[in-house]
């Protein structure tokens, strides 16, 4: 009897482990959102916002060596990136542009802005990197296209700092787009 109890005790002890808690990060702008009436831009609307496939997964992406990335298992975005990146950019551009950029499905604006994020991850050198392309389409014809790339150093170690740096980079992209739209307006 005693050996059986001892074996079961060992098995239970072997199977038991302390689960690592998963951290979730929300991609939202830092500025406070006030209640106001939205003013849709009469000139521009937001079309497709696409992101590279390797970004569109729950875990935050970290480059562990040149050309090799690893999605974090215990540090995930709180919502799908293809949804949160679009919401984030739409709101950030609207703030910088001083007019709300509605979805092209609902906006009568004749010029559509489309964005593609090609790179968004942490680097092994302690930075976050963002590479994106965006272009404007006027009545079905491509009118102008742009490329944006930037890096942001992490304030401290950890994935929270990486998520924050990526948000700063997306804010910079939104500001660049908004400034260009102002010039085109």
């Amino acid at each position: 009897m005693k050996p059986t109890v001892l074996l079961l005790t060992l098995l239970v002890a072997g199977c038991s482990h302390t689960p690592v808690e998963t951290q979730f990060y929300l991609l939202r702008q830092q500025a406070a959102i006030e209640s106001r009436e939205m003013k849709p831009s009469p000139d521009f609307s937001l079309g497709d916002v696409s992101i590279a496939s390797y970004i569109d997964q729950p875990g935050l992406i970290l480059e562990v060596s040149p050309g090799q990335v690893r999605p974090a298992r215990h540090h995930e975005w709180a919502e799908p990136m293809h949804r949160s990146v679009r919401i984030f950019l739409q709101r950030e551009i609207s703030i910088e542009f001083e007019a709300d950029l509605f979805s092209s499905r609902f906006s009568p604006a004749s010029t559509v802005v489309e964005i593609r994020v090609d790179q968004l991850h942490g680097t092994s050198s302690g930075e976050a990197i963002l590479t994106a392309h965006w272009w404007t389409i006027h009545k079905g014809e491509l009118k102008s296209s742009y490329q944006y790339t930037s890096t942001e150093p992490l304030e401290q170690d950890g994935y929270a700092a990486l998520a924050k740096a990526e948000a700063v980079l997306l804010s910079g992209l939104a500001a660049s787009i908004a400034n260009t739209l102002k010039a085109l307006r």
Partner: protein
Amino acid sequence: MTTMKPDIRKGKSFNPVWIIPILAVLLGGYMVVHTWLMEGPEITVAFDTAEGLTAGKTKVKYRNVDMGLVDKVVLTDDFQGVIAKIKLEPQARSMLSEDTRFWLVTARLGMGNISGLDTLLSGAYLQLAPGTGKLGKRAYVALETPPLTPTGAPGLRLQLYSDDAGSVSTGDSIVYRGYKVGRVESTRFDSDRRQVNYNIFIDAPFHEFIDSSVRFYNISGISVNAGAEGLEISTGSMDTVLFGGVTFGTPPGIPSGGPVEKNTEFKLYVSKEEAEDNPFVHRLPLVVRFNQSIKGLKPGAPVEYRGITIGRVERLMIRELAAFGLMMETKGTADSIPVLIHIEPARIELSDTAASVESFRNTLKAGVKNGVRATLETGNLLTGAKYVYIDFFADVPEASVGSFGDYMTIPTIAGGFDQTLVKVNTLLDKFNALPLDDTVGNTNAAIAELDKTLAGLRVMLEDSSTKALPGELKSTLRDLQATLDGFSPGSPMYQSLDNTLQELNRTMSNVESLTRTLSSQPNAVIMPSTLPTDPIPEAKR
């Protein structure tokens, strides 16, 4: 008394006094041989005239090196020419073979070039061209003009002959696909054959293009040909346009021939068309007799079968018509004009043999029974040129092949414009035969019936139930639009569907993560995970 015996001694066999004459003879012989060897050969060269020749002054040159001097110029015994006696350098002895050539180099102005300008200042000289034949010849006849091809040049010398000199003359180029490969060396009229003979030379390695199937033709000037096959303009290179030239090639469809020996004779055709026109040896001559105007039909016009040229018109048999027509006048055939044509079975991929001709003859005999007829067609509306067209025709009276003199004949039918006239007349006859009065009456009845139908349609359209149809249709479309709006972006149904898909995506992502974990650690479900922890992003230090 003693007897005295003479003391007989053998005298000296050689008296030293002879040494002097022998030495003199040997020395003399040596001097003769030496002089002969050092003197060089003496030769004679015959000319028509001594123009340009000056004794003691005119030099003989080879590659611009002085090889001798004209020693004396004398008239021939019959006073018909002059003979230049020439002393050559000893080195020239090995150049004097049976085919060595001499000619006088003076300033010459030709059609294509100017040569010998340097002799205007230095005076004329004799050019020597060494030969390769048997050595020892000492009497030569000078060439009237400089040879165009160096002696011993690699290549092939051929003979061309034609009935007319045309525009080909000595010095003209032989070109192959526009590239000069030889030249006409000389031209002469062969009084025996009453033809013009051309001596041509094809340079190596182009002489390998010459075989027994090759045909030479004149490409001088610009050729404009308006025939039944249309207007055709052809020219050679500028050189051949200005100065004349000859080219060669194998007619299409003719296999390559065998090798040819030097001085083989070829016919020089007037044009490419003539060269390619009669590439076949075996022909089937036929006579076709037309009961219509043959204006525009000329010798050389094509004979076609369904667009394929199978032969040519040989000639219009006017002479035979006169004799034959008088004889056949009573049978009413004197008004048809016989035309001699020939068909070449090899044009339709049959072998160029007599057997093919016989086979084609038999085929034609059977074909005539089945409707094969010859007709005249207009090939070129601009020039009015005609050609003979052979084909199967339906609804033609039965006929068979006949004969005209020694030739087989095939029946003809009216063709071209004449046939069109017949068709127009037939059409007019049919039009006249139409029951127009009855047709107009029937048409009026049909129009009255149509009026009744339209009146009924008007009543139906004015009916209230018919008028209500558009309203109902509009209502149905509105309902359909409302239904579709329920699925449009932003609608509750769309949002619900979108949320469901998002949940499904997240679930699939989790499943993917689980699958990845299980693939790397299959016992992860019951055992603690030993997967590595996430690497920590490190800020810059």
